[in-house]
């Protein structure tokens, strides 16, 4: 396996800026740029008086996360870091200022040391300006730490469900406590496990960012190639799905008669055909467990450049969370009508 090191790019050092320019040019009906904050994407008609401002963010290279989730009904702003690197505090703080409408701001991001440090520094700086800011770091990756240490877990594709719930809560004009509560509830209800088949190549380097042998896959690998639970020969799709589902079901506590929502997420170069083959087995397993699926999302929601691999995320729903997921939104990556 050789990662694809051929890319459509000009200057690798300019790739994030050029991506953002391209994004604004493509979706002027959804987002707007700010010359004061070139690393942020603002919702055109998101922020409004009395609404909690939702700022999400993280490293670039995970598109459509995070910029694709900005828009009415979801995030008010996304701050983009360099590829696989948290954004710096300055643009995060600026975004907080810009989306603040008197009801406070919520920062949301995947739980990585870098993101935590940068968003925390921004929150400290915001506090000095008397902006009320709270933070929720998504911790859905079951493979990244045992249950007893779940606050150490990484945030991966489950970001999608947790952001969606918080965005809906904020769009419904819940107050900051209410939005934080919705985010935390979704965060606690969401579990993800992934599997990687190949590495990806960072735009600035010519080499794959990790190595997986021919015919090898790694179960539980993180979206940046962080090592997972086990590495071994490529298994049939149903076996892979079983490994992911077993682990998720064992932890979730979801039982017969309950309802969940599913995300079968592609990491970059895994085909939709394969994702549906995986979904087929995941659904069989949930049917067997008499857990019903309220809504499934299948496709690329949180990627790792052109890595080959997939993840399964499950959010255990109650009426509240279901309503939040079904709440309308209009973003570049997701339209719920």
């Amino acid at each position: 396996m050789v990662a694809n090191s051929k890319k459509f790019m000009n200057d690798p050092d300019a790739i994030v800026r050029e991506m953002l320019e391209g994004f604004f040019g493509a979706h002027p009906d959804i987002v707007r740029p700010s010359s004061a904050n070139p690393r942020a994407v603002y919702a055109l008609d998101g922020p409004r008086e009395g609404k909690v401002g939702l700022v999400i963010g993280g490293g670039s290279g995970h598109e459509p996360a995070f910029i694709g989730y900005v828009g009415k009904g979801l995030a008010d702003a996304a701050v983009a870091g360099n590829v696989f690197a948290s954004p710096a505090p300055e643009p995060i703080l600026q975004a907080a200022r810009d989306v603040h409408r008197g009801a406070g701001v919520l920062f949301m991001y995947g739980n990585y040391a870098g993101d935590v440090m940068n968003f925390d520094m921004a929150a400290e700086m915001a506090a000095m300006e008397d902006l009320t800011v709270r933070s929720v770091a998504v911790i859905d990756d079951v493979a990244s730490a045992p249950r007893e240490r779940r606050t150490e877990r990484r945030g991966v594709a489950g970001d999608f469900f947790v952001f969606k719930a918080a965005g809906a809560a904020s769009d419904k004009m819940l107050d900051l406590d209410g939005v934080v509560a919705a985010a935390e509830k979704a965060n606690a209800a969401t579990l993800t496990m992934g599997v990687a088949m190949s590495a990806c190549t960072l735009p600035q380097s010519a080499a794959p960012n990790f190595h997986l042998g021919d015919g090898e896959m790694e179960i539980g690998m993180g979206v940046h190639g962080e090592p997972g639970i086990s590495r071994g020969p490529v298994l049939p799709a149903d076996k892979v799905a079983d490994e992911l589902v077993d682990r998720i079901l064992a932890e979730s506590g979801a039982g017969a008669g309950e309802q969940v929502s599913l995300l079968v997420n592609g990491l970059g170069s895994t085909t939709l055909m394969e994702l549906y083959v995986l979904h087929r087995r995941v659904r069989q397993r949930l049917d067997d467990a008499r857990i019903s699926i309220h809504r499934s999302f299948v496709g690329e929601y949180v990627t790792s450049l052109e890595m080959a691999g997939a993840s399964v995320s499950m959010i255990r729903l109650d009426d509240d969370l279901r309503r939040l997921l079904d709440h309308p939104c209009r973003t570049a990556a997701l339209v719920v009508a």
Partner: protein
Amino acid sequence: MRTTLSAADFVAMFHLVADRIEEEKVRLSELDGVIGDGDHGITMAIGWNAVREILTPELEEKSITDVCNLVARTFLNAVGASSGPLYATALMRGGAALKGREGADGAALAGFLAAALQGLRDRGKAEPGDKTMIDAWTPAATAAAAAAEAGALPAEVLRAAAEAAGKGADATAAMLPKKGRSAKLGERALGHVDPGAASAAVILAAMADGAARP
């Protein structure tokens, strides 16, 4: 050899750091590729190249503290990531320790490094032995203090720090990771040097070389 380092010397040292990081970029990313996400060299190079841009002659007129603060903020904003907050905090704390000084002698340099280390620890909450840059910076600060105690000149203090950092970085190969992206790696990280520790050694060696220039 100089007995004290001026703001201009700090500017020169940071210049050299930027050069050396650029040279070592690929190696550092490769180290990160083994136990992290493969971007450490790129990240450091982005940051130090941004720093190079602001290292203008006018800056030499400012205080050491101001130079450090400006470098810290520039690095942070260019980088984000883990290294951004860590080094920004370290540089601001180091700079603060030199507040009011025209020039920094050996003891002041040791104080600079001790304050920087404390900044890294406060920001990242990593302990020695967690297989991070802390494992290069901790022995570096200790060695610097010992050298200063023995009356060493600034360049000698930095040299002692750099050598200790290099050894500290090498020693991370035998450690189990506890913090950062490689924390989930466990046993598989054994035998591999931590990229952040390796870049710490590069930075300190560049500073020592910069300080020793005629």
